[in-house]
């Protein structure tokens, strides 16, 4: 089947088998190996990407289901050489060790903050429930997400929404650049 999707700002058109998972399309066809596979039962969240601005486990979506959609992976999160505030916060708070869970964790955290710009500890823990990390014990991940929340919208809750919008905006922008 022929599908077209925009991934990290670039438009791709490909023929894929109907059974191909989005994560395999990203990794094997597009070389987007920043997104990884950690399980075969949709439990680990390592494969989390954004599909039209919301986080999904890309191992539980078929590539054909993403036809016509915009996908953002960990590789498309930084802009103009500047890290996304959540990426920066993961670095600043030592929220990763081996880093295998990190792409999925960051993508999920960005989505979480779009929904809830100022989550308390429990809200962060609940929001990341679908993403497993074996290294960190989560404590610094929680710290990082709350730190990012502070940095993204100092004192003003609804502003955090902007990040999602900005990301979408940037996606559109760079897609336009690619198309022109």
């Amino acid at each position: 089947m022929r599908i077209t999707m925009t991934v990290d700002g670039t438009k791709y058109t490909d023929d894929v088998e109907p059974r191909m998972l989005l994560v395999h399309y990203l990794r094997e066809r597009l070389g987007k190996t920043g997104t990884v596979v950690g399980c075969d039962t949709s439990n680990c969240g390592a494969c989390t990407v954004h599909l039209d601005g919301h986080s999904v486990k890309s191992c539980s979506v078929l590539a054909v289901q993403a036809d016509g959609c915009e996908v953002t992976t960990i590789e498309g999160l930084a802009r103009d050489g500047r890290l996304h505030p959540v990426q920066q916060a993961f670095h600043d708070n030592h929220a990763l060790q081996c880093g295998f869970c990190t792409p999925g964790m960051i993508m999920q955290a960005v989505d979480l903050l779009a929904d809830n710009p100022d989550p308390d500890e429990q809200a962060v823990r609940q929001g990341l429930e679908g993403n497993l990390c074996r290294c960190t014990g989560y404590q610094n991940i929680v710290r990082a997400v709350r730190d990012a929340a502070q940095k993204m919208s100092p004192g003003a809750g609804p502003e955090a929404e902007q990040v999602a919008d900005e990301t979408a905006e940037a996606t559109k922008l760079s897609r336009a650049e690619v198309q022109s």
Partner: protein
Amino acid sequence: MTSTAEPEVGRARLRKEDARLITGRTRWTDNMVLPGMLHMALLRSPMAHARITKIDTTAAREMPGVIAVVTGQDLAEEQGSLPCAWPITEDMKAPDAPAMAVEQVNFAGEAVAAVIARSKAEADDALESIDIDYDELPVVLDMAAAIADGADLVHENLGTNRCATWVYDSAEAGSGGAIDDAIAGAEVVVERTYRQQRLIPAFMEPRSMLVDPTGDQITMWSATQIPHILRWMTAAVTGVPESKIRVIAPDVGGGFGGKLQVTPEEIITFLMAKRLGKPVKYTESRSESLASAHHGRDQIQKLTLAADRDGTLRGLKVELLADMGAYLRLVSPGVPILGAFMFNAIYKMDAYKFVCTNVFTNKTPTDAYRGAGRPEATFGIERMMDELAAELSMDPMELRRKNWITHDEFPFTTVAGLTYDSGDYESATDKAMETFGYDALRAEQQERRDRNDAIQLGIGISTYTEMCGLAPSRVLGALRYAAGGWEHAAIRMLPTGKVELVTGTSPHGQGHETAWSQIVADQLGVPFEDVEVLHGDTQSSVRGMDSYGSRSLAVGGTAIVLAAQRVLAKARKVAAHMMECAEDDVDFTPGTFSVKGTDRGVALADVVVHAHVAHDLPDGVEATLDSDATFDPENFSFPHGTHLCAAEVDTETGRVRLRSYVCVDDVGKAVNPMIVEGQVHGGIAQGVAQALFEEAVHDESGTLTTGTLADYLVPSAADLPSFDTSRTETPATTNPLGVKGVGEAGTIASTPAVVNAIVDALRHRGVNDVEMPCTPMRVWSAIQAGGAR
């Protein structure tokens, strides 16, 4: 190069590794693609014990994209037997361990056939067309039954399921008295039996390997903790000269001992690539990983603790059964033996005896998992100290204080024969007790008991130590381990002023690139940013013993210091020559040499160039300042600490909530306190997971029923609380950095702290044990049963 005012060691430097990991520019083995690369899929036995009566691969060979299908029979000539490097006794029974089963399968998940195809999907599809018949054999699962007379046998040809029995007796070793006398003469004797459930390391990156036979060498990328050992052992198993094998561990996503292995998958992939002359990649699925990558723990511990009425310990007897599973992997038999020296922990006693019998069953082989033998030991003794305290109606911390080695008694040779170089249990405990608010919590506990509150409060203590920094080679030799315990480092002083540090350690999340840069920066007085750490490739890191057993810093870090000292020793000669003075007159402050008592000086950077161009070197001095060193430790290192856990137990539902968790660890000097803290967090999480959530369960046919991450309960963020972690710093006296190691501490300490808290909450209800994992069902049942007394 300038001298840094503030020393690098001790600074919470943000990690160099992060840049690639947070942006997805990572090199996991599975990311790699080579021209002509083929994909392998493995057919695994659903049976735990069976004879293979037929395998027909004809149909599979005809499937689209399939290049080859092989069975154990096809590999029988080349595959040899997987290595066990730790034959713990002279008469240890070791079964043949083929990478792929030939005639018989001995655990569910064992590989029985491989398909190599042009794509992974095609390889997977073809597996279904392999026609295989089994003749079921009786399944051996229970350790006690396995060693009873007339038991069914896992390996018929061994004639027994007993692998080996290993004994440490303080009377025989001369490190203490006779245990029987100690028990006979004691006023109080407490006996308990504990079960260390089977666990799965569950590193997040599934194992993956890619073998490229193109060219004169065979290159193997593998998600391994042990590239150097893997190279050595692959040569030993396959007969391919070691010099023709290059192993690379690129970015590796966690290990926890689970990737301290020479796996069947690596050997099969290696042989297939060699046979086909094309690169072959194999990446396991999570389900394959849970069933076939080695498991950990799985012991039955019978413990007898003898003491006087005033709480003075007399002796400890430890009788273990340890489940090896179906085969002996790299260090399987030695894992429980690492615990032999740790059951006596931080306590003084007259006599100690340890007897461990390793047993074969039809389950996945066990091997190292974070702590490897030491968590089991710490759990055993720390649970027993609480039981004894209850028996004596003594405060459990008071009992510990009464018996532990005091700070002025170091170095101290224990009843298990180890000499602990340093420690300060009092300081760590005092600090932890204060933060925790021990007295207030005890008061609240009493109050809840008095009003028979549905939510009861328990306080769990674990005052642990561990032996790490593995290991003095002569000790390993005495324990019949096949390899040494040294580590290697090389420093290359590049003419551009940059420094390459080549380490034999092989990180997979520990942050060596950052911490090792800090050490080099201090030693040489070069900027942290100018140090590049190279690791994990046997072609650049030519010597190494890899990363496990909290050894990397204490052993590998010391090798770095020694290599740096050699760089400076040589630089001093060259600098003296450049400054036209005697070597003895040269002073070194980080980054600069000077002539004593003058303002004449030369920067290290200039000495580097001078030595590199070699136009004018003193006689007998070779070009470049590059140096290397190997360090073999004299002794283990002994981190310690006090972990305190307050748990609320809902007596109506059995639900456990960890209300607070406080720990003070002493890992010696912290090179990077931020990384240390992260290791402690993750370590505690894994220990808590053993106490509350995780267990590898097999049904009566030997099938793993916890075969996915939906069933094997690796905790999520929502399952865990925050931990209050801090440190005391009592430097190790056995290495120049004063470091001890931190990788395993949290895991070793936390499991008994949590279980002690749960039991403590329910002790007044007649409960003196809850089997792990302490699920609501188990806790509730223990309450109903009113305990085992």
